[in-house]
């Protein structure tokens, strides 16, 4: 069972650069960033920090999803349901049974409603159902209800690596035959809580973020949801379902260095990448493209870059797509898994926008244009607070 190959048969995404997979690909192809002024999130920092915001109101999302008036969906649940539906549709999964599982990632879950209602719950009993939105499982449950998934449903919250870890957990469930198919991915919406939290850490950039640039000033936040449908190769072939990519390997390791900052040597990221390669039975030379975590904070890019330098004698084509979407926290690993698969499908690599000056401490520069090239294996990195480091490796469908 353990050597069963895991395939991706469906993808869905909504982010600042588009509300479906095609729109996201087209923006990536045209180097069109989605980062700009805050319009929907109500915050005093509207003019201070650019973000990757999805320009769809909660009302519009609810209408699209045909939700009843009192639906009690958090914004992350709305975005999640919106993107997850696309993934299930592409995978042609019409009947959901107990063999279908759901592993969702989120960092702050229903924080958008919590921060709006925090002192106002008591005002109106119609606010009461949102009290439970303070635990992340609430947001997952809403998406599960919308899709009709009643069996194995769980939520992973490992900050900014949640999405990648959800993919990993889904694969394990399939390999041990616990499920026939599993929806994996993550969702996070912008909130005052995260915006002010990252600001308190002084790692938000007042300008457009510049991953892997010597003069990078920090990250831009974003919001997104991304999902994949995973199943075994055997099952996908049995039902003649086109395979989009293989999930070749994965690993999670811990930096065990500091609560928020990464170690100078990038120990955790090094281990995650190395173990993912081992898990996939690949050597570093076989990786054609790295979709880096690349948040554009001084700390992350140096640590990640150093780890990559340590592991790869020659750095493969590398870029961070954070300058397109912003750092979408838990969702980052999920939407970047989608981007990695697009790279394999279209045999191309994506630009690392806003890059100008090579980092003095690294011997490589990120790739800065959209380019057609042969891509057989893609490595996608996601790192989070708590030293949490995850790497996924996808390969081209045959």
């Amino acid at each position: 069972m353990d050597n069963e190959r895991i395939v991706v048969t469906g993808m869905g995404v909504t982010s600042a650069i588009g509300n479906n997979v095609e729109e996201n690909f087209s923006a990536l192809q045209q180097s069109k960033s989605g980062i700009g002024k805050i319009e929907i999130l109500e915050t005093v920092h509207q003019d201070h920090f650019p973000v990757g915001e999805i320009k769809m109101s909660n009302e519009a999302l609810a209408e699209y999803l045909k939700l009843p008036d009192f639906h009690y969906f958090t914004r992350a649940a709305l975005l999640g349901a919106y993107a997850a539906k696309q993934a299930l549709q592409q995978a042609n999964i019409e009947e959901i049974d107990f063999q279908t599982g759901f592993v969702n990632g989120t960092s702050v879950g229903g924080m958008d409603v919590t921060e709006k209602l925090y002192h106002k719950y008591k005002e109106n009993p119609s606010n009461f159902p949102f009290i439970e939105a303070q635990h992340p499982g609430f947001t997952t449950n809403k998406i599960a209800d919308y899709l009709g998934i009643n069996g194995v449903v769980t939520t992973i919250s490992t900050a900014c690596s949640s999405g990648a870890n959800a993919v990993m957990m889904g694969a394990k469930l399939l390999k041990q035959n616990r499920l026939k198919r599993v929806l994996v991915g993550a969702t996070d919406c912008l909130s005052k809580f995260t915006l002010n939290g990252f600001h308190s850490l002084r790692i938000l950039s007042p300008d457009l973020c510049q991953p892997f640039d010597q003069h990078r000033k920090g990250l831009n936040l974003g919001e997104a949801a991304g999902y994949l449908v995973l199943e075994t190769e055997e099952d996908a072939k049995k039902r003649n379902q086109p395979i989009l990519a293989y999930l070749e390997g994965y690993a999670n390791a811990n930096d065990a260095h500091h609560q928020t900052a990464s170690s100078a040597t990038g120990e955790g990221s090094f281990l995650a990448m190395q173990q993912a390669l081992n898990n996939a039975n690949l050597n570093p030379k076989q990786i054609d493209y790295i979709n880096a975590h690349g948040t554009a904070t001084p700390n992350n890019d140096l640590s990640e870059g150093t780890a990559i330098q340590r592991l790869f004698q020659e750095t493969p084509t590398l870029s961070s797509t954070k300058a397109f979407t912003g750092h979408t926290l838990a969702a980052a690993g999920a939407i970047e898994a989608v981007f990695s698969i697009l790279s394999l499908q279209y045999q191309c690599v994506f630009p690392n926008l806003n890059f100008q000056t090579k980092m003095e401490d690294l011997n490589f520069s990120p790739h800065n244009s959209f380019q057609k090239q042969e891509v057989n294996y893609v490595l996608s990195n996601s790192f989070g607070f708590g030293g949490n480091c995850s790497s996924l490796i996808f390969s081209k469908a045959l």
Partner: protein
Amino acid sequence: MSNLRVELKEKIIEQLNLEDLSVEDIQNDDLLFGDEIGLDSIDALELIVLLEKDYGIKLTDPAEGKEVFKSIETLAQFIESKQ
């Protein structure tokens, strides 16, 4: 001992939850980030907040913080120079 220096010690102990330390345990020249007091990068961020909130001083260049937060003495001198 000047009041500002005592005040800073009290504030740092309270703000950074250094429950095991008292004002007497911190010498004006002790390295705050070295072995003596043992603060870390999160504490540095807390000190930036403390400077701005309690003394109205905005520290914009993080590199500047390194020098300023060296010891109670350097911190006090920095505050005095801004007042």
